[in-house]
């Protein structure tokens, strides 16, 4: 890209073209997120380690005394890989919802950003990108905890941040969309209880979807998190197959759909 320069008043940017999704705008918005991250990374990192640890202790060891294996997989390892999707979901959908609503409605920082040469599309894309990069990285935490619990490291695990990134992108954009249509922050409770909780339980995280009645089993196919769980497991156990391309395709489609939806829904409300 031609780095746009700003001359002293008068001669500025006369030759500069107006474009969509400029890297400089995305980087600018994300630099704000990075600066803020410097304030809260300790809390985020703490919970990203402690949460999977508790899941593994409660489900893996507690529940695992009843169920020792799922298929060929040790139950602790089954949960450790499944919880990656949970971590990605929580670290993308919630920031998507709460950060967006707070920055838009309470702090009005989005007003300030949009008064600068940043478009709605750039603002939302940058926010979602940042959340999903973070979700991808923190999605590794359950695997690290799992390794401490005896999960065998596998080169395929290196793909997990990318899977987490794509899944996180979709759910972050989903969160932004929810924030856009919610009248108050309390309305998020509807989404958390009626949408996110079932998504996270019926995804093959703690028990295989195949144990569900046929109706629910079919529904699970529409759950992006289910496809995330499958991909993460296959990658982590070194079992990637052709079918995984299908899972990846679903996640990419979900991400693209949610991205456009977030831009149209929030954009309509940011620009009146």
């Amino acid at each position, binding site marked *: 890209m031609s*780095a*746009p*320069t*700003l001359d*002293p*008043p*008068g001669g*500025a*940017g006369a030759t*500069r073209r*107006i474009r969509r999704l400029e890297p*400089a*705008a995305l*980087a*600018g*918005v994300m*630099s*704000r997120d990075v*600066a*803020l991250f410097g*304030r809260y990374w300790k809390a985020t990192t703490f919970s990203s380690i402690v949460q999977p640890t508790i899941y593994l202790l409660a489900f893996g060891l507690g529940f695992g005394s009843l169920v020792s294996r799922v298929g060929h997989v040790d139950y602790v390892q089954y949960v450790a890989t499944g919880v990656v999707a949970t971590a990605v979901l929580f670290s993308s959908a919630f920031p998507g919802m709460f950060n967006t609503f707070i920055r838009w409605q309470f*702090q*009005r*920082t989005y*007003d*300030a*950003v*949009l*008064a*600068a*040469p*940043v*478009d709605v599309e750039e603002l939302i894309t940058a926010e979602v990108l940042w959340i999903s990069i973070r979700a991808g990285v923190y999605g590794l935490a359950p695997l690290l905890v799992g390794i401490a619990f005896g999960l065998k490291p596998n080169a395929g695990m290196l793909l997990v941040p990318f899977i987490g990134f794509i899944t996180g992108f979709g759910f972050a954009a989903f969160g932004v969309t929810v924030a856009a249509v919610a009248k108050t922050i309390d309305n998020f409770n509807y989404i958390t209880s009626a949408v996110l909780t079932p998504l996270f339980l019926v995804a093959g995280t703690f028990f295989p979807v195949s144990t569900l009645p046929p109706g629910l089993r079919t529904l699970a196919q529409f759950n992006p998190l289910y496809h995330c769980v499958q991909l993460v497991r296959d990658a982590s156990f070194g079992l990637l197959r052709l079918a995984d391309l299908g899972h990846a395709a679903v996640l990419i489609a979900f991400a693209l759909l949610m991205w456009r939806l977030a831009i149209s829904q929030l954009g309509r409300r*940011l*620009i*009146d």
Partner: protein
Amino acid sequence: MTSGGEAAISLQGVVKRYGPIVAVNGLDLEVRPGVCFGLLGPNGAGKSTTMRMLTAQTLADEGEISVLGYELPGESKQSRLEMGVVPQLDNLDVELTCRQILTVFARLYRVPRNDRPAAVQRALEIANLVPRADTIVRDLSGGMRRRLLVARGLIHQPRLVLLDEPTVGLDPQVRQELWSLIDELRSSGVTALMSTHYIEEAERLADTVAVMSHGQIIAQGTPAELVRAHAGEQVVEVYGSPQRLAEVGELATQQGWPSRRSGPAVAIMRAETLDGLAPEGVRRPANLEDAFVALTGQEIE
């Protein structure tokens, strides 16, 4: 480039409706370069809507808007690159330091990487915040936060600045600080459009004042021109008992003298034309407030 020619800001026949409410109703406005232009009007006159339309955060239903020669909303991003905005509401990130906020906005305004530290330093100096550079916003006083908002709008040395009610809700001392800041800006040759509902603010800072009421400009000129045209040269203020004030008010109405209640007095405008018919009272030069009330029929706080 546009029909606006040399105008820094040009609005023609601009209309903005919110359902049945017409916030801006056929607004025509032209701001020449290098001028500090005051948009004066009571609350609800449509000033903030107008300001938001200049950054394309509100889209006009009708009419044409150009800023710095760029047509809005199509070329708004380019015009936003070259202008700065100081919002009415504090929208700072409370968790970040002054330096962090200014650095983020230096990036948003595409200040080249190597120039950013100097731009941030310059903005901190303008806003007199150098000793507070690494304090987080939450710990700043209200006046400091407002100065930081101004600094943020100037980070890229824009040639046009929008100031939306820059001193609303500030105590008098902080307001003075901000006024001198805006005055310095004006002397440096930057074009400024400032909305305000404080008469004194417009009178002190603006080269040209446009009075806005019900979404339209109803008068425009230098403060002195507006006073002369709409309030005359002198005002006589008659003090007395409520009964006396009522009598004077009635007399003024009968005689067709422009008058208004002004605190504990009745003020009769254009006293110089009354040829000794005016009741006894205190004579003073007419001011912008008299003109404003004569124009809008509204008292201000």
